[in-house]
């Protein structure tokens, strides 16, 4: 029954990935033909300062954005889990950022952060136009802006996953904690949080995977600038592969990213996933 699905995955994902891996073993230039260089490109990657910087920028982005998204997402989930009038509308409102195409959302943030006619400056400084900040011009604020856009776009998705986790916590558990005299914070800290762990970990996994692959945001907002401050590894891989045409080295970068993520997620599947899935149905 799984055959059609596996066929799809094999043809359009696995085979291309294998193909790419093979390409990463061949030289880019020069010579009369593409020669086999084994793991030469991988060695080159180890000594490429631009790649190192891109990797650090990416790691920073992943850590910062996933942390913030988990925090915001949990906050959102806690709020929309409560019962109040108009909750449906609030839930829908919160989901809107997630439904906006990334390309559009990044253009929007570029527009909002504009140094002259951007809304952010108008809100912060009003008419004092010479106080307006060119957010995307400074390496640090530009990096922050990319993180901000990502957090805005995907916190609601995280919130959705956390909300799902919240909903399977039985009310009784809270009642028990109340009877035991726990304050609201203590209930959150000692009851909600531990029980949310699987949901939080799932959210963390999906977000980490996505954050590692961040591309559209940087492509639209900063093109990696200024001074490579927002150059993430996928964008570097893209530039190498598509713009510079260095097929071998470009795929090497992407394959490396993939391997890093695969190790991460297999680790996850072993620890968390197996618990979720191997529990036999009653």
């Amino acid at each position, binding site marked *: 029954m799984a055959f059609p699905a596996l066929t799809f995955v094999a043809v359009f994902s696995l085979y291309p990935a294998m193909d790419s891996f093979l390409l990463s073993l061949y030289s880019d230039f*020069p010579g009369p033909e593409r*020669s086999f260089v084994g793991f030469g490109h991988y060695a080159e990657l180890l000594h490429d300062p631009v790649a190192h910087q891109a990797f650090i920028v990416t790691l920073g982005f992943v850590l910062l954005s996933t942390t913030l998204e988990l925090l915001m997402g949990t906050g959102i989930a806690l709020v929309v889990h409560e019962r109040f009038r108009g909750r449906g509308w609030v839930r829908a409102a919160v989901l809107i950022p997630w439904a906006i195409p990334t390309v559009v959302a990044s253009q929007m943030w570029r527009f909002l952060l504009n140094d002259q006619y951007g809304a952010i400056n108008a809100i912060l400084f009003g008419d004092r136009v010479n106080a307006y900040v*060119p957010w995307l*011009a400074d390496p640090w604020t530009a990096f922050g802006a990319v993180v901000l856009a990502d957090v805005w776009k995907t916190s609601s998705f995280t919130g959705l996953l956390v909300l799902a986790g919240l909903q399977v916590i039985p009310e009784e558990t809270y009642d028990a904690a109340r009877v035991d005299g726990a304050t609201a914070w203590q209930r959150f800290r000692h009851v909600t949080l531990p029980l949310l762990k699987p949901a939080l970990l799932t959210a963390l996994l999906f977000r980490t995977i996505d954050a590692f692959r961040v591309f559209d945001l940087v492509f639209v907002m900063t093109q990696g600038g200024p001074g490579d401050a927002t150059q993430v590894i996928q964008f570097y891989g893209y530039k190498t592969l598509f*713009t*510079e045409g260095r*097929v071998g080295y470009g795929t090497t970068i992407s394959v490396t990213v993939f391997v890093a993520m695969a190790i991460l997620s297999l680790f996850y599947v072993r620890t968390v996933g197996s618990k979720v899935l191997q529990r036999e149905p009653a």
Partner: protein
Amino acid sequence: MNGFHAVFSIASSSPLRRLSPWAVGLFAASLLSNVPFAHCRDFGTARGSSPTLVSSPVTLHFVTWKADHPRVWDEAIQRFEQVHPHIHIKREIAPHSSTAYHDLLTQKLRNRDGSLDLFFMDVIWPAEFATAGWALPLDDYFLPSEREKFLPATIASGMYRHHIYGVPSRIDGGMLYYRKALLEKYGFSPPSTWHELVHQAQAILEGERTTNPLLRGYSGQFKQYEGLVCDMLEFVGSHNGSFLTDDGRRSNLTAPESLQAVQFVREQIIQRLATPAALTYQESESLAVFLQGNAVFHRNWPYAWGLANDPQYSKIVGKVGVTTLPRFSEGKSTAALGGWLYGISAYSRHPAEAWTFIEFMASPEMQKHFAVHASLAPSRLALYADPEVLHANPQYKDLLSVFQTAQPRPRTPVYPIVSHVLQRYFSRVLAFPETDIREEAQEADRKINRFLALLRDL
């Protein structure tokens, strides 16, 4: 040259011989989809030798971008189809950023897409396209007698190693726009040197501080992207510097002329006149500053003239002047050469018809059409004396010299790599004011030299 072709084309049977037998099967399977259709290659080599009958209808696929004046282009193509009813032009629209367009187009070419006939080439691509074997050499079509009628810089940009690959559709060159009325108010005439520009801008900023606190001295393109290379070329070039040595074999960024020019941009232009906001500007953002009346000087391409005088976009209609870019006292004014060339895909099945189209679009009549209706500066010299063209674009008269001397960016098959290194270098030194320019330049030199060295054996 053929060697480099193979570098870029993914398909090549030779790696198989170097793999152990068990790996061959695996690789052969993966190769199935890489091997181009045999007939594609046939068409590629048999180009021109078997002219297609005139009567049989042909559809040409033309990869282009969405033009700023779509109706002008629609009309041009309609006219062509009227004159040549058996040829139908099918446009494929790619993004209109040079880099994104390049990436999409090269993806198709790398895969030897046989359904692709015509494309635009940015002036920086012919070396890359020629080496990779993607662009059809046009020597037999685009005869020297015809080439003479074009601006020499545009022809040079289409040449690589004695073959011509592109027909200039127009010319672009960097130029200095300025606030005519404002300069007159302070008794200045347009600056001829950069230091003069700084001096004038500062005097005007001082005087206008109360009336327009937003006013900046200079607005240019300093975002980390291809445009940054153009802007910096103009500064470095007008200080007698260059990106590569004259023989094109080594990077020349650590030459004192070059270092000083970069330092001037960092200290005088960015920090004093343009503000770091310019580090986020491409053409449209920098132009917006100018059109809102918030910049004294503005560097841009010829198209800006039309917009600056269009009340729908501009607050400074009629108060704008344009001139050649300034120079350093010991150098000469340098304008980066831009523009787009028509090219034919080496894998096209209809090169003859494709040429018919290019010939038509690059004809004096059509270039005039674009100049008059879309402010695109013609690549044909004669049109700069044409009354209709000059009536629509009076500024051309004074700017012909800019176009005639426009400076190309490095001409090398690895230009995209060189450009990335340059972008990173310039963006870093401008965005991080504490960096040591020389150190950064050395680092960039090293990287560029490494890739140039790889090409030397070709």
